[in-house]
Structure formats: structure tokens, C-alpha cells
């Protein structure tokens, strides 16, 4: 009986506690920088697309929401002809970001993606591609991996650094560290 009264009193005292609700549209919640939100495609420091259309993100995607088609430019460099993410299927697991060998695909802190028309949730490359480098400012995939062109193998050109040895235990050098 006494415990019942104590329970009522304890609940009544909650009247004077601060409320925990974050009044969302007016008051912004704290979003941690590693938040898995809207997916973007980034560019390398030279302004070129980082994506090499390797399909690893599409393979890693558990809900098959990524579709792309690889093609090559005049120098034999691969890039996606189209790159499509269906955000009405995407579960924001971040596997695509983990799978990406070139840091091209990245998840951002934006989560306000509501649409009235479901079709608008299908993002094409022009919607996904940003002008900056995203989370990895100095990184350029071809500087690390090298690129073989006709008559020259990776790291063979004048003043070209040898490519990073992937089998080595030492960490690969990034552009920003050099």
C-alpha cells in the first residue's frame, strides 16, 4: 500500500524535471560525424570522379539498391556511365562505403530526405555526385595505385612514385601524408 503511494509521489515529482524531448524542426538534435545518412559520390582533389565503376558497392549492398554501368574514357580510365541509388530501398547500412576501394561512395550526416512522390527517391549520378572530396580530403586513388597506360606500367614514368605494395604490412601512404 505504501509502495503504491510512493510510486504516485515519485511520478508526481517528475512534473519538475526537465523534459527530454528534442523539439526537432526548431531544435536540431546532435548528429555524430560518422552518422550514416544520405549517400554521395565524391571527387578526388583534382576534381575528377573517384568512382572507378568496380561494382563492389552494388555487390555489397544487401538490398540491391545500387545500380551502375561501367564505361571507359579515352585514356582507358573507368567511370560509371550511370549511377543510380534507390533510397526507398536503401537501409543505410554503410556496406557500400566499406566496400569502396577509392573512397568514392560515402555516407553523410543528412537524413532529411522525405519526398511526396516515391519515384523522387531514386537518385541519379547527377544527384549523387558532389563537387568536393567528402571525408577524405587528400586522397587520390590513382596516386596510390598507379595507372598503367600504353607503353608504360604502373610507376614507370619519369618522377612517378612506385605504386603502394598491397601485400606489405606497412600502411599505404596517402597523398596528405606525403
Amino acid at each position: 500500500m505504501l509502495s503504491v503511494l510512493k510510486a504516485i509521489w515519485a511520478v508526481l515529482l517528475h512534473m519538475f524535471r526537465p523534459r527530454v524531448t528534442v523539439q526537432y524542426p526548431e531544435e536540431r538534435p546532435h548528429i555524430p560525424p560518422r552518422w550514416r545518412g544520405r549517400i554521395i559520390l565524391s571527387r578526388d582533389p583534382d576534381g575528377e570522379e573517384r568512382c572507378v565503376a568496380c561494382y563492389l558497392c552494388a555487390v555489397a549492398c544487401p538490398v540491391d539498391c545500387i545500380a551502375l554501368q561501367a564505361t571507359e574514357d579515352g585514356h582507358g580510365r573507368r567511370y560509371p556511365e550511370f549511377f543510380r541509388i534507390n533510397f526507398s530501398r536503401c537501409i543505410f547500412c554503410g556496406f557500400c562505403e566499406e566496400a569502396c576501394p577509392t573512397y568514392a561512395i560515402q555516407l553523410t550526416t543528412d537524413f532529411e530526405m522525405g519526398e511526396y512522390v516515391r519515384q523522387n527517391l531514386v537518385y541519379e549520378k547527377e544527384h549523387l555526385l558532389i563537387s568536393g572530396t567528402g571525408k577524405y580530403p587528400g586522397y587520390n586513388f590513382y596516386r596510390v595505385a598507379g595507372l598503367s597506360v600504353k607503353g608504360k606500367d604502373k610507376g614507370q614514368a619519369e618522377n612517378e612514385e612506385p605504386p603502394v605494395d598491397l601485400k606489405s604490412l606497412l600502411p599505404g601512404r596517402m597523398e596528405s601524408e606525403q
Partner: protein
Amino acid sequence: MSEALRSIIIILSVIGGVMTIAAGLIWVERRLLALWQDRYGPNRVGAFGLLQVLADMIKVLTKEDWIPPFADKSVFFLTPAIIAITTLLTFAVIPFTSTILVADLNIGVLFFLAMSSLGVYSVTLAGWASASKYSLLGGLRAAAQMISYEVFMGLSLMGAVMLAGSFDLRVIVEAQRGLWYVVPQFAGFVIFFIAGVAETHRLPFDLPEAESELVAGYHSEYSGMKFGMFFVGEYIGITLISALITVLFFGGWLGPVLPPVVWFLIKTFFFIGFFILLRAALPRPRYDQLMALGWKVLLPVSLLNLAVTGGIMLAGR
């Protein structure tokens, strides 16, 4: 002529006032529960979320009003009206002030008890007419709970009736001019309050609904405004029990400075708030615990209260 007009105005304003309070309680309850759970509750629709009431009403009125094909249709149709009507009718005998009351019935207390007994039919028959197992279980529980708690609900009031020497609610209030009956009849007040919570099947005694066990209990099969009527009936019930506690134990409209109606409303709303606080604070007892509490504790205590009150009154004569 003016006498008749006055009666009509009082009747209409009582019905309007009670229905408004019952509808407004949707918002009051949600805001108060939120306050005690460190949340805000509905605060977006209109000022302080007050228009939430309107939004809820539009919603419930435009919902599909579905009668299951296996239900006993006429009874299914009738039961939501019964609870709303019986609780609303009882307000006819509630004296808001010495002059504002619909019917100055000299058996007001008995009228209330009769109407609350009729209210049991609503819940029980709703469970029966739905022809679904969860509804039936809810209806069964409702029948057992409300009938057992009605026994000492009546007994707990008799102390106040004996002290005032009348079943007339207005006379009972007038008799409290010196001392509110909550002091000499504290046991009666506590028992009446607990029985009132059980009678309106509010939490923690919402076993007929018990959403964690019985879907929604007796009104599982109800939708649209038929469900809305049960809801309104429940809120009118809360208002009714709070108003009766005010009248029987807390001196009704009596109070200094402020006008009588204001005193009545303040006291009533205090108990409505307490009803909601109970909901926020207490978990639902098991069915057998509820029955044991009723028959083994509250009934003997209310009988004892009655005997002691009678003994003291006889000794003081």
C-alpha cells in the same frame, strides 16, 4: 415560462459543458501524462496543441464504421450509446451550485448507483455482441469487476448519506458547510475513489481493456465513432466520479471568495488530474489480485466504516 426557459438553458449548458470537458480531457490527459513522463505530448496543433481535440474528432468521425459480419448487430450497435447515456444522465442530479442543477432529486445518490449499474451492461454486452474471444474475455472481466466494486461503492457512500441524513446530493453538500466529509469519512472517500476507478475501468483497473493481454478487450471489434462513444463514455465517467467525490466528500461548491461554480470546477479538475496521475504511476494488477482486493479488503473495510459511523452517530445522539 421563464422557469421553463431557465431549466432548458441549464440542461443545455450542462450537456454542452460535460461533453466539452469530456472531449477536452483527451488533450488534458495526453499533456498531463507527457508532463509526468518528461515529454511534451501534443503541442503542435493550435495553441498548446489545443486543436488536437478537433483533429482527433475529425479523425474518429471519418473512420470507417465497420460492423463485423459475425457480430450480434443490434446489440453491437446499441452498447456504445448505453455507456455514454448512463454516465451523461447521472449529471442530471449533480448540483454544480445550489441553484445550477438539472433535477433536484431527493434520491440523487441512488440514481447515480442505478445508472452506474446500467453502465455495466454496455461493457459486458459489447464484449458479448462482438463474438470474438478477446472481446468476450474483456466483457467477462468487466462484468465481474464492475459488479463486485459496485457493492462497496454503494456502501462507502452510505457514511456520507448517514451524516447528512439525506440521499439528496444538494442537502449532502449543504450539510458539509462546517466540515468536509473527507475528514469524518476518510475511509469512505478512499474506498469510493478506488471503486470509482474500477467502475470507470480506468488504469490501473483497466482489466476489461488490458491492451497487453486482450488486444483492446471489450471494444476490440469497435471502430469509428462507435469506439469514440466508448471513449467519450470513459471520459464522462472520469468527470462524473470526480464531480461526485467533490460533492460527497469535498463540500461541492462550498468555498471562500471565488464564485461557487469555480470552486466546484477546481475541485473536480483536481480529481480528474489525480485519475490521470494514477494512470501514469501504477501498473495493472492481476485479475485475481483485483478480485481479492475488492472482496477481502475493501468490502470489509467499507462495512466496518459503516458500522463505526453508525455507532458514533448513535452514541452522540
